[in-house]
């Protein structure tokens, strides 16, 4: 009898397929960042002449860094006030239809930033079809108020508030009710309980949420590109983009150095977030969550919530819909001149719209599928045959998602500027490079649900099958796969949802014929074709809402935390 299928591999060598898997992970997750670092540091020996030194000496760098910090800080402040406030409100009170409010408040996070920017641009400013309809539009020729640092900060704050909301809400949901009841029996009033119990216990949640919001704002490209570039207000991601757009590969060396700086700032933010995410150990079972009774004021609180949703979500989207229906920009919309020509054009005419749709579909479905296939075995190996260095692997997988998209895009350009050695295939200028970047960026998105599902999978289920005589492949087919499949599918949908609208990475990697939906909206808006851009954006928002509902349905049987907007 040979040692063919032992249950634990602790004393075993890693098998060939695990090495293969780890190699693929290395290529898609570590190689790009490594290549970027190498490029930025390649001429460091030249000291004063090195690109790093040049970048550090350029006033534009420092100005953009200041702009980035300024807008990100403002946005984070807004996100914390909005996100934490609503989290307290929704998680701790007895308002009705909580899952509806959570869903509505999550939607701004899932809407791509360029669509957010476009819809707010349609809402404000002299050209606003909605304001014209209401007769309160500013005079023609007056400046668009959103083309400013405050505009960027406002929109990024709204976009990233859900991140703070999620983080705070999670820390509130695990607060056991008994804890508060014990405080009340000790004689604490409602406000003392908030001050002495609830706030200290969820402080880390707020700080972690603020850190994610800051990192996300720092890496946000869509909003500062749509609002900042027209006003020549550059932040770090848009500065990199503009340099690449203006000078092309000539600037690669300098741009790499710039990217490394952005990357380092982002990594610092991620480190802060991880530090605060370390939970306060709660003693005892999480009992029923808290719910303070609002009494008679409940209806007013609900009305207030509805008003907030109206302002941050419904009104901009209404403006977007209105803009997509006008015959031409600047025309006042009435029932008579309502026009669906933009939608018709989107579906039939204009090869580029249809092509971009196809490209984005192909890329997102492809990436989501490949990533699900990678995530399943990877998660199994990491959970069932733990080794110390796997925790490093899991951390490295997070890096490309935490890096600003522009940085990852530069890294991919560097990696594929020359044809791949040995096989002599050039990915540069093809859909392949975008697919590669998506695989790199979204592996962690695909992995998380499968990982938490796997962590909850009792090892005894497999052992019971093994005692029945099932081999490893049989156990995989009959036990592990069916039980992980819902989580893998949720991961698939999440990746698809994010990738199909992705702009930041593809903005630098696209080429003629290889546009994505995100790039298309950006280009259309940039080229003044606002009506068509709005129509495409409206379709995208609809698609997102439908997908999110699908995910909620799929997520019903999944472990907690897999679907962000579900309990």
């Amino acid at each position, binding site marked *: 009898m040979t*040692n063919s299928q*032992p249950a634990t591999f602790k004393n075993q060598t890693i098998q060939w397929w695990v090495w293969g898997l780890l190699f693929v992970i290395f290529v898609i997750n570590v190689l790009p960042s490594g290549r970027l670092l190498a490029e930025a540091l390649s001429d460091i020996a030249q000291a004063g002449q090195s690109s790093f030194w040049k970048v550090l000496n350029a006033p534009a760098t420092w100005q953009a860094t200041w702009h980035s910090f300024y807008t990100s800080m403002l946005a984070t402040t807004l996100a914390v006030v909005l996100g934490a406030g609503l989290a307290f409100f929704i998680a701790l009170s007895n308002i009705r239809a909580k899952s509806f409010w959570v869903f509505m408040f999550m939607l701004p996070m899932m809407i791509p930033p360029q669509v957010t920017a476009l819809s707010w641009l349609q809402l404000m400013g002299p050209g606003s079809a909605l304001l014209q309809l209401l007769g309160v539009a500013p005079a023609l020729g007056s400046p668009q108020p959103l083309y400013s640092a405050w505009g960027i900060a406002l929109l990024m704050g709204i976009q990233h508030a859900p991140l703070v909301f999620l983080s705070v809400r999670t820390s509130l949901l695990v607060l056991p009710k008994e804890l508060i009841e014990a405080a009340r029996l000790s004689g604490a009033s409602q406000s003392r309980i908030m001050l002495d119990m609830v706030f200290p216990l969820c402080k880390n949640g707020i700080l972690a949420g603020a850190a994610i919001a800051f990192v996300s704002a720092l890496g946000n490209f869509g909003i500062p590109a749509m609002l900042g570039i027209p006003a020549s207000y550059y932040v770090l991601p848009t500065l990199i983009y503009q340099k690449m757009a203006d000078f092309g590969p000539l600037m690669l060396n300098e741009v790499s150095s710039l990217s490394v700086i952005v990357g380092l700032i982002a990594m610092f933010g991620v480190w802060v977030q991880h530090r605060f995410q370390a939970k306060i150990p709660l003693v005892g079972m999480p009992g029923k969550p808290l719910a303070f009774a609002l009494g008679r004021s409940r209806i007013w609180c609900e009305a207030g919530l509805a008003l907030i949703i109206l302002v941050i979500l419904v009104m901009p989207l209404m403006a977007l819909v209105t803009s997509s229906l006008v015959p031409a920009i600047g025309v006042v919309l009435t029932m008579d001149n309502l026009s669906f020509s933009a939608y018709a054009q989107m579906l039939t005419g204009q090869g580029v719209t249809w092509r971009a749709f196809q490209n984005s579909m192909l890329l997102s479905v492809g990436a989501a599928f490949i990533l699900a296939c990678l995530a399943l075995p990877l998660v199994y190996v990491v959970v069932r045959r733990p080794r110390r260095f796997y925790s490093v692997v899991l951390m490295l997988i997070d890096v490309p998602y935490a890096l600003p998209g522009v940085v990852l895009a530069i890294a991919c350009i560097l990696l594929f500027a020359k044809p791949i050695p040995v096989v002599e295939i050039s990915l540069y200028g093809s859909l392949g490079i975008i697919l590669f970047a998506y695989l790199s960026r979204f592996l962690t998105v695909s992995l998380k649900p499968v990982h938490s599902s796997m962590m909850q999978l009792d090892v*005894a*289920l497999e052992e019971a099958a093994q*005692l*029945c*005589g099932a*081999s490893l492949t049989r156990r995989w087919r009959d036990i592990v796969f069916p039980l992980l499949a819902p989580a893998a599918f949720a991961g698939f949908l999440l990746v698809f949802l994010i990738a199909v609208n992705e702009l930041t990475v593809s903005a630098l990697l696209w080429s003629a014929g290889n546009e994505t939906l995100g790039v298309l909206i950006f280009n259309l808006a940039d080229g003044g074709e606002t009506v068509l851009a709005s129509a495409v954006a409206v379709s995208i928002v609809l698609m997102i809402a439908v997908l999110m509902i699908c995910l909620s349905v799929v997520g019903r049987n999944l472990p907690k935390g897999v679907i962000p907007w579900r309990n």
Partner: protein
Amino acid sequence: MAQLVLENVSKLFGSSRVVDGLSLDIPTGSFVALLGPSGCGKTTTLRMIAGFEQLNQGTIHVEGRQLAGPGLHVPPDKRNMSMVFQSYALWPHMNVMDNVGYALKLKGIKAEAYRQQVFQALETVNLTHLAERAPQDLSGGQRQRVALARCLVSHPEVLLLDEPLANLDQHLRASMEETFRAFHRRTGATFIYVTHDQAEAMALADYVAVMNHGRLEQWDTPEQLYQYPQNTWVARFIGQGSIIYVRQKTAERSLTGDNVMQLLSSSLGSSQQAVLIRPEHVRVAATGVELQVLSRVFKGERYKYTGRLPDGQEMDFYHQGRLEIEQNVCVQVQQAWALLD
């Protein structure tokens, strides 16, 4: 006729010896309990027998066939053993019937033969009416019985049970114990039952292996274990009783009432020899050793008291009548057992 043989088995996790030189000869068809406090290595031992853990040292044989040893490890799927897990480990995506029949499916048994064997197994645990249910829709006791039926269907030589009653409430335990006993009679398989509950072990097993810190403390029938524990640790772990230290070494281990009374009255207050005195062997009498009552617990049919001997050592005893705290009484000890260390 010892047929499941563990010889000098050791298991290391890192540098700690979880199981340390364990040897057991388990007769075919017996019901054996591995008993010990948590962390004593009993579950690891069970998992080594099943093949989920590899040995660092020693060998395991079944019916003369070697399963594990240096350079050899028969995987669990080739050992013809079954296991009832603490969490039951029922596959949530299969219904009761598919759970029970999975081993048959793997053996290629199909159609009528499959149905017949599955239902036979379900019948023995009275669950035929739930064949189509999902495991999640069953009560704890029903899940336990499905897990048993799943083990029964593959006719294992050895059935391993890992704290199977730990997740059930008190009144279900008694009826499940009866099910296990009936099951053991019917199958004739060797049962190895891991538990930390001595009452469970005593009630079920033919033999009990008492483990502590990865070592075997004692291997005996439940009766022998109760009456003649090897050492003070086992004596403290099994049953109720007081360990009293006396000055003189005893020649005999089994002490009569006269022996004990003489030891107690003449040579208290030293630590030459440990003696185990069970509370049921202490009688309140007109004369004897004097005790001051320290605590009283009402047990329904009688009271359990703890009293203090003149030298300060404490002794438990039962008595029908109610005694007051701090009252002085005299007791006679009817028998005792001298412990080796």
